[in-house]
């Protein structure tokens, strides 16, 4: 077993464990923290895959911004825990069964049908971060300029939409 593979397996174990932790935590705050850990693990994977820019974006945007927003909302609403109800008794076993089937099916499909197969990063390849970033930027601003701009508009629209949603009408008591 090479060092690479060992590292991968350990990280994979951490990722699955944190995901399960997120899933089964009773407290929403714990869930969010588990998810942060998961995101960080995935960021490490990105580094391993030779995508340092995405890895950094993952950490700053997901772990840094989005999850902080989640925590804010959880604490703002005081919704860490929900009272136990059992409205849909069949939901849980059915969901778990179907999910397991889904995981097996998709694994099988991806393994049997996915092309190309092969190794990520040839052995001994050095990842030059600066070159990687430059090449990434060239691709982004040469081939994907329009989607980039559209994304900025999308963000603006989301911002305006959020403001409109939570704005209080004049004279409206809440």
């Amino acid at each position, binding site marked *: 077993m090479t060092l690479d593979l060992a590292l991968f397996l350990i990280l994979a174990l951490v990722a699955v464990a944190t995901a399960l932790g997120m899933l089964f935590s009773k407290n929403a705050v714990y869930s969010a923290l588990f998810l942060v850990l998961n995101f960080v693990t995935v960021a490490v994977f990105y580094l391993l895959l030779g995508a340092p820019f995405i890895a950094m974006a993952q950490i700053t945007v997901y772990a840094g911004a989005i999850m902080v927003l989640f925590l804010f909302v959880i604490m703002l609403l005081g919704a860490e825990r929900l009272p136990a109800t059992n*409205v*849909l008794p069949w*939901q849980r076993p*059915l*969901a778990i069964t*179907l*999910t397991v*089937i*889904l995981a097996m*099916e*998709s694994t*099988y*499909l991806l393994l049997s049908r996915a092309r190309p197969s092969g190794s990520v990063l040839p052995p001994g390849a050095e990842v030059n971060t600066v070159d990687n970033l430059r090449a990434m930027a060239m691709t982004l601003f040469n081939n994907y300029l329009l989607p980039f701009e559209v994304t900025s508009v999308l963000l603006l629209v989301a911002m305006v939409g959020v403001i409109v949603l939570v704005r209080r009408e004049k004279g409206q008591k809440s």
Partner: protein
Amino acid sequence: MHLSESVTTGYFFLAPWLVFAPVIGLLINIIFGGRLSEKAIGTVASLASGASFVVSVLLAWSLAAGHGAAVTVPFLEWIHIGDLELDWAFRVDSLSTTMMLVVSGVGTLIHIYAIGYMHEDVRFKHDPGRFRRFFVFLNLFIAMMMILVSGDSYLMLFVGWEGVGLCSFLLIGFWYDMDTLGRPSWANSNAAKKAFVTNRVGDFGFLIAAFLMFWAFGSFQFDEVFEAAHAVAPGVIVAITLFMLIGVAGKSAQIPLYVWLPDAMAGPTPVSALIHAATMVTAGVYLITRSAELYTLVPQAQYTVAMTGAITALFAATIAVGQYDIKKVLAYSTISQLGFMVAAVGMGAFVAGMFHLVTHAFFKALLFLSAGSVILGLERGHHHAEHAHHEKKPIGKSGKSKAESGHDEHEVFDPGDMRNMGGLRKTMPVTFWLYMIGTLALAGIVPFAGFWSKDEILLDASRHYPAVYILLSIAAFFTAFYMGRQIWLVFFGEPRHEAAAHAEESKPIITVPLMVLAALSLLGGALNLPFEGFHQLGHWLEYTLHEVEAFPLNLQVAGVSTLVALFAIFLSWLIYGRNPLKAGQPDPLKKPLGFIFTGMENKWFVDEGYFAVIINPFKKLSYFLADVVDWRFWHDWFHETVIAGTYNWLSNIGLNLYADQKGIDAFANWLGTATQSLSATLRKVQTGFVRSYALSVLLGVVLILGYLIVK
């Protein structure tokens, strides 16, 4: 044929304004008339008509400048269906411009007159709101008449023909809720209906003629029809021309359809003058003249037309002798004079007919309007006298007046009855002299306009149609006689009624248009003097009519007609002038003529005859058809019993019980129940829980992936 190139030169492009000037006038009066004063309304209407006259003059001038070549001014594409192409185009030639000038010229004068006349009439009838309506109708009439005379095809002519018929109906029945004396009655609207229905009979003839024309020639356009007419069997032309004659008889009041015109006097006097004397009724004469090329192809039809006209001329003239209403006399005189014109155009003397049409428009308008002035004068006198009565209350005098007038005191005073007149020469001198001029022109005394035109007709008749000549000469005798009778009865002798004694002269707005018309009646003969080099109207119309006979003055014919007229006037003086009629005295002709005069008085019982022969049987037939055939047989028995009964039975037993209730209803109900129960089951799937929806989505995903794996 001769669609001239000169549309661009001259003022021909103005032709549509002939129609649209009066239309604009009437629109102004319709829209703003409520805020305008009476004078302003009258002025707008008169200006609109005057604008039409100016356009006519410009068109005539342009035509003369272009050496009379006919011009067609295309205006509007109307109906294009297959081979049928009907356009609204204006035909400007010497014939149509002559008519335009007469219609708009006389029309404008009558508009001005009507401002004064209607004001008094309106005050008399206490309804100022109708003043506006009257002028709207008058302008509409001018517009329609212009469409009639300027149309380039028989169909456009027919549009105008129907339009003037409508205006005639509207204006005869203008005081639809009262009779001529202002009493509540349906007499006026009945007269209007009579005119309209009688005209329908004539229009039916015109329509048949038009259909035949289209069937035979494939066109309504004048030039195309005339060109094609030469290649068609004469029988077709005879049919066309004779059916057209029915139309002419309706519109121009010829035997047998003349009966509406005397009743049309129910309309206001300016209407009688404009529509029922000067312009509309001459439309038939215009139609025949316009169709000259058709009529000259078939002498039989020409002869029929000429005889119709001549007999009408004589027949109506005899009736006029026995009438007492001042306007009725003129009405029958109009029929008689129209008979002269129709006879003239029937003989092929188109120029003479048109000449008489023009001069007749002048002097008959003059006579009618003067008669209106007389009636107004008498109304004023009556008003005055009544006031005097109410102030003094002299019992003896009132009793005397009762005896004098031969009327009950409470009976409404009839200002149009000549037996109430007499001696107006002194109280209404201006009107008297104007009336004299009109009378002399109508009677055919040298040098008044009527002499020259009537003489031309008689001259033509003496050359070609001796029978027509004799009939027309006798008619001319009667014409002079009844006009003399009227003059003596109205203006000479002593007043036979207080109103006549107190009659007052009319205002200038009434008399000035009359003076213009009087001048035209006096000088109108100059249009076509029977001397070498003076046939202006003949030359003018020659551009359109091509072959025009121009006769020099025949002293024999002229002398005979003048002598006949003078003798008739002398005779009338002997009977009515020497010993003026006393109040309450019967007509002096009654005794010597006996039943003949009774016939004249009662219009030869033609109306009664029509009632007995046509209208009453027609009514009885209608009642029979409506009551017995339609209602009892058709509705009660056939519809109710046979059809409805069978249907009900069938539908109740066969269809309702078995097919509908047990078949269709059952199926439809089952469908509804099934849908309801199915949806009730399916509804349970919609739990409202987002998570179960998501689960079903996942189920779908798993199934699809499974399918992909198995595939």
